[in-house]
């Protein structure tokens, strides 16, 4: 039998107790044990960013993060971003500005934007490019993604009255 470890993860504000092999990545546990498939499995080696989740507000590649290490931390996945059925502003901007085509990269970009704007509500175009450099998108050529991020930043600024 496999060597299973009981771990406790706080995901999108809810605590989940699961029994997993210790080598399981956070991505695998989210997708296979918790049914949270919004984080996508692509390169599985930290090159593409489709598996991005937020840990304590910071974007990480969950394919490189062991689930055991995530205990005691605040994990947010794409499923936890919309509140009360309403899209978060970042999600809205991605939809409106054409930042989504096949959508496979979208959860990663949206969460990375969240993390960026947490730290820097006023990013320049260069800041955006640098922050997103770990995220591949094969469909859009990035232009409409960058425009979506700029739009989200300015809408959020507007909302908060700054």
């Amino acid at each position, binding site marked *: 039998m496999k060597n299973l470890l009981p771990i406790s993860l706080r995901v999108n504000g809810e605590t989940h107790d699961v029994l997993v092999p210790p080598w399981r990545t956070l991505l695998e546990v989210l997708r296979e044990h918790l049914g949270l498939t919004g984080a996508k499995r692509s390169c599985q080696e930290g090159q593409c960013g489709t598996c991005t989740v937020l840990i304590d507000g910071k974007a990480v590649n969950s394919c490189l993060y062991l689930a055991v290490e995530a205990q005691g931390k605040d994990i947010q996945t794409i499923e936890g971003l919309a509140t009360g059925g309403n899209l978060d502003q970042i999600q809205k901007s991605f939809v409106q500005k054409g930042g989504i085509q096949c959508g496979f990269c979208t959860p990663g970009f949206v969460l990375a934007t969240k993390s960026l704007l947490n730290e820097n509500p006023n990013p320049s175009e260069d800041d955006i490019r640098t922050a997103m450099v770990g995220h591949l998108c094969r469909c*859009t050529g990035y232009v409409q993604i960058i425009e979506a991020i700029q739009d989200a930043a300015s809408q959020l600024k507007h909302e908060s009255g700054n």
Partner: protein
Amino acid sequence: MNDPLRNEYDVVGRPTPKKDGILKALGRAEYADDISMPGMLHGKLLRSPHPHARIVRIDISRAQALPGVRAVVTGKDFPGVKYGNLPQTRDYLPLAIDTVRYIGEEVAAVAAIDEDTAEEALDLIEVEYEPLAAVFDPEQAMLPGAPLVHDNATANVSAQVAFEFGEVDKAFSRADYVREDVYETQPVKQGMLEPHACVGQWDNSGKITLWSCKMSPYVVWRQLAMGLGVELGSVRVVQTVVGGGFSGGKQEAMPMDFCAVMLSRKTGRPVKIVHTMDEVLTIGHMRHPMKISLRTGTDKNGRILAQHCKMIANGGAYSSIGGFSMYLAGAMLNIPYRIPNIRYEAKRVYTNNGFCGALRGHTNTQICFARDSQLELIAADLGVDPIEIRHRNALQPGDETSNGFRIGTFAFDECIDRVVQLSGWREKRGKLPKYRGIGFGCGSHISGARLMGHSASAAEIRVQEDGTVHLSTGSTDVGQGADTVLSMIAAEVLGVEVNDVRFALVDSDSTPVDPGTFGSRVTFFTGNAVKRAAEDARRQLAEIAGQRMKANPDDLVFRGREIISRRDDRQRMSLKDAVRWGAFQTGRLVISHGTYAAGDEKIDFRTGHGNLSPAYNPSACAVEVEVDPETGQVKVVGFWGADDSGFPLNPLAVKGQVIGATVMSFGHALYETLVRIDGKVMNPSFRDYKMPLTTDVPKLTDFQHSNVITWEPEGPFGAKEAGQGAGTGVIAALANAIYDATGVRLNSLPLSPDRIRFAIKQKYETERAGKESPVAAE
């Protein structure tokens, strides 16, 4: 007819967010890997480590005995029927039986309770191979005595095409100027982020279902039935949300698909198989690497009189769609320039590499790289302005090309001018600082193709009693926005909102049969089918409403979810009331269908003559680069493109398509290549297979694309293709820009730093040695 420049439409022509965008933004769109079913098992594939070998023996007993393993299949579990795209090139088996022909070819598959166990079981399968001599280079593969990849392919030629249009020898003898250059392109991958994934189920009644991220589910449907040796009716293919395709394995049935259903048959459980990115980048389906020798004759003003193209394509171990690719590359010599006399000789050669097929811009990209690189040299030699030479040779509306393409709308001259103006070409060309340069490139593409097999599209519409429209087609949304543009077309005709239309994913049991998504055909072919289906539904609704309102159906217009009399606009009823009244009181259901077959013209694929597509799209672009002479690194600092996509139905999506195609071409031009040593891919990871990043595209203000708007009478609401043509001229533009920046011309792709650095060094040394001769790398 509406004036496209003054948009009189309610829906089409307006930037419209993608319908499935919300679901995708929420992370709730279901891709194949997201599917989970009760009792589902996980499959893995065992791949050949040899480029060419005979399979002597396979022993699966130890793998089968591993706890958690539920079934193992090998080639012998299948009926041994070869499948493939074209009848004459069916050479692929679900799993290899006695021979493997490239590293990565599938030889066995395992289903187990989880992926780790399945993976472990692969190590326990013993395969005894007898290695055979292998061949990797297509020219060597054609030499006498070369190892044969397939016994029935003489000299390893997998497909051979030769066309002659016009009087080529005569034209060359009249030419004032002739030059010949050789260009080489590299193996590049589709690079979609979603690896191939599927779930297969073979139930007790014999029904075989495959859920998978397919662009062309009906192609898969037929191939599955073929390779499994079962009746078509017992197979059902259900499309999941597609995480990017760009042709390739999502276009056809793959070994994983066969194995998933066969493992399910053996276990009685659904079986999921997902490729790793390592597998995706190792196995077949990629762009054909080509060696293109292009000889061009012109008059003294640079007017092209004749072209002779000899091409050798490294096809890899199997055919895929490669036979058609060879036709297509020759056909693409005919657009976007007037070439009155063309000779084309192409060979696709089997080698022991991963196999090649279609990829966005299918063969056109390679041809455009060669042609527009050479055109620049011709212009320079003849002292003709590089823009002027393109104008001089531009195809014009109303032309018929030498292979019989009938050119309708084709605002090529306008595209060129638009780019000159957007890019500031006149202020930049020859005037930029050292190591900065600007280059021009042009391309073109088809709006769907008339094929020998299945060409026509179909659509079905049901208008529901709440006034919503259920639209089903056999075309797929692969991210390009088919879900939205097809819904827009239906909404426009029926006078409803885009969000009133529900677009169905393909399910071969219920959606109408369709070739699928490729060749820029969906908006055009399926769009026309949807338009006709919607018009039929509108006619039915007008009859119902006419009866109810005591009005002449011909007098009724559809707008704002209402049916209104043109004669007296107080006479109106809501669309939904019409549907309800029709269904409840008269028993009439509003169910319609429409088809589009692009006329009954045919291509003669032996002579290459015939009008392939109902419409053609020209494009032009200029790109500005900065080259670091120390490292050879190229930075794209500006890009300006224009294309004639007809009337853009959804400008937001058209922008996404042209920019996406453009940036993909940046990657194919500058960074991407599969590095192979003796058939082994050395860089099967996104770490080493370099695709463009956010930092590789120009600043937003210097990255512009403009649509030259025309009205294509054959297209739905005037539309033409948008997703591929815009990328085709980009590679030559980059090569030309690098030349402008550095004075070195590279004829081999990718235009990578090492090559550029080496060529600059060589040029410098040659110049220092006082020699005058121009230097070309490789």
